[in-house]
């Protein structure tokens, strides 16, 4: 699959996900109306849930990147600092190689090496690095990291990831809200012993959905993110024509196992390596894979070295 097909697929997936989430919110709302709504005469909760879904996905799409930038305390580069000027140069070089507009560049004062990209399209994107990354990596390795992130931008991975981040957040919120409601269930309506078994099954499904949705949406976010890392590694290497530089960079990043404190779990799937630190590639196996936003770093390095015909 080439990068243009991937870009098209990512844009379609973004739409599909939004649709699923809106339907999911409707389902939650209908369930709440079934519990409480009968006295009101209007599907009060359904309308609320639908509005929450539409407003949160739309505003997330528009302002999610700014929210993420401010939550990580990212600030603009200081071009008088030679290291930051070098990074700015590297990003400009890679944007020429990728043939996309120059993303806005930001830095986070964190000693742990990491980087991420966000935004909704190549025309509207931001690239963030930590101070630690600039201090740890050599020029060609910085280039490799920039190329990896630029591929996420060019692929529209950033849009999909932004949508996922916003939706996972609002699912957690709404499910929390809905399950709290269950404990305050109105006793007026406890005289419904005659309910058919079909209604009961629907009710059970609704309950299970409310309980499981936050976990499932997290798992889905991780799956979506893992899938995209190998492709970004590969197309990044295609831009620099130097897969070994990225392998070297990943080795250096993974040897610094400290967590990136300024990046919280909500943004983890955007980063070049898992900001949780200890998880960065140490564990393997399907269970560790299931709960990781990134494939094991060892495997990524191996794939890159194979690209350079080293193995």
């Amino acid at each position, binding site marked *: 699959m080439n990068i243009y097909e991937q870009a098209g697929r990512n844009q379609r997936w973004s739409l599909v996900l939004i649709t699923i989430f809106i339907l999911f919110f409707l389902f939650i709302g209908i369930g709440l109306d079934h519990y409480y709504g009968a006295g009101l005469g209007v599907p009060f909760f359904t309308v609320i849930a639908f509005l929450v879904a539409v407003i949160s996905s739309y505003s997330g799409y528009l302002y999610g990147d700014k929210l993420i930038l401010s939550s990580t305390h990212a600030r603009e580069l200081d071009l008088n600092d*030679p290291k930051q*000027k070098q990074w700015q*140069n*590297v990003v400009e070089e890679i944007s*020429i190689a990728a*043939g996309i507009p120059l993303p806005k560049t930001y830095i986070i004062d964190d000693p742990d090496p990491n980087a991420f990209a966000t935004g909704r399209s190549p025309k509207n994107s931001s690239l963030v690095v930590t101070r630690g990354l600039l201090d740890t990596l050599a*020029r060609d390795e910085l280039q490799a990291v920039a190329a990896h992130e630029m591929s996420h931008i060019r692929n529209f991975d950033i849009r999909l990831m932004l949508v996922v981040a916003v939706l996972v957040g609002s699912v957690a919120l709404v499910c929390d809200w809905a399950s709290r409601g269950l404990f305050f269930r109105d006793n007026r309506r406890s005289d419904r012993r005659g309910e058919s078994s079909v209604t009961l099954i629907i009710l059970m499904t609704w309950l299970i959905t409310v309980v499981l949705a936050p976990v499932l949406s997290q798992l889905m976010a991780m799956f979506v993110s893992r899938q995209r890392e190998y492709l970004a590694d590969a197309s990044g290497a295609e*831009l620099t*024509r130097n897969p070994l530089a990225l392998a070297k960079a990943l080795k250096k990043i993974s040897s610094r196992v400290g967590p990136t404190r300024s990046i919280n779990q909500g943004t983890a799937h955007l980063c070049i390596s898992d900001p949780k630190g200890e998880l960065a590639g140490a564990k393997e196996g399907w269970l560790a894979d299931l709960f990781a936003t990134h494939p094991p770093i060892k495997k990524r390095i191996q794939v890159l070295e194979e690209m350079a015909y080293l193995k």
Partner: protein
Amino acid sequence: MFGWIILALAVLLILWLIATYNGLILLKNQSLNGWKQIDIQLKRRHDLIPNLVETVKGAMNFEQTTLTKVIEARNKAIAAQGIADKAEQENILTGALRQLFALVENYPNLKSNENVSRLQEELSSTENRIGFARQFYNDIATKFNTAQQTFPTNLAVNAFGFKPADLFEILDASEKEVPKVDLSLK
């Protein structure tokens, strides 16, 4: 009935011609744009060189010939016309700059000079930009050429008057040379 089939075929043919023509125009403009990107980066390099020479001149009195060579190569590169000539002159300039930076290594006070290291970073970034702009141009131009040469588009190309785009190749003999590997144990 027969007339309708002919008409349908003619309409299909015209639609195909329109699609082919537009596709080729898109690629042609993309490769022209790619070429302009190279030009922009080359100009950036030409603008940086006088600064560099000015900064290192004092400390490198003994290397006057190298400095003159760089300036000369720069002026020739600016004056060059046409893709092939331009590519050749730019490659000579690259060689001259590389020589200059190799010499800078011999002057510790230059190496530690902040202005020099800043200029060095700017120039190596410019070299990379030129490299990446060429890579991007060559990729697009290759796509354009392949589109022109593959069947059935090649049948329409002559009628439209498209010509294959020149690729930016390495013309400098020293860069083409295969590096010699010395296996004797010293």
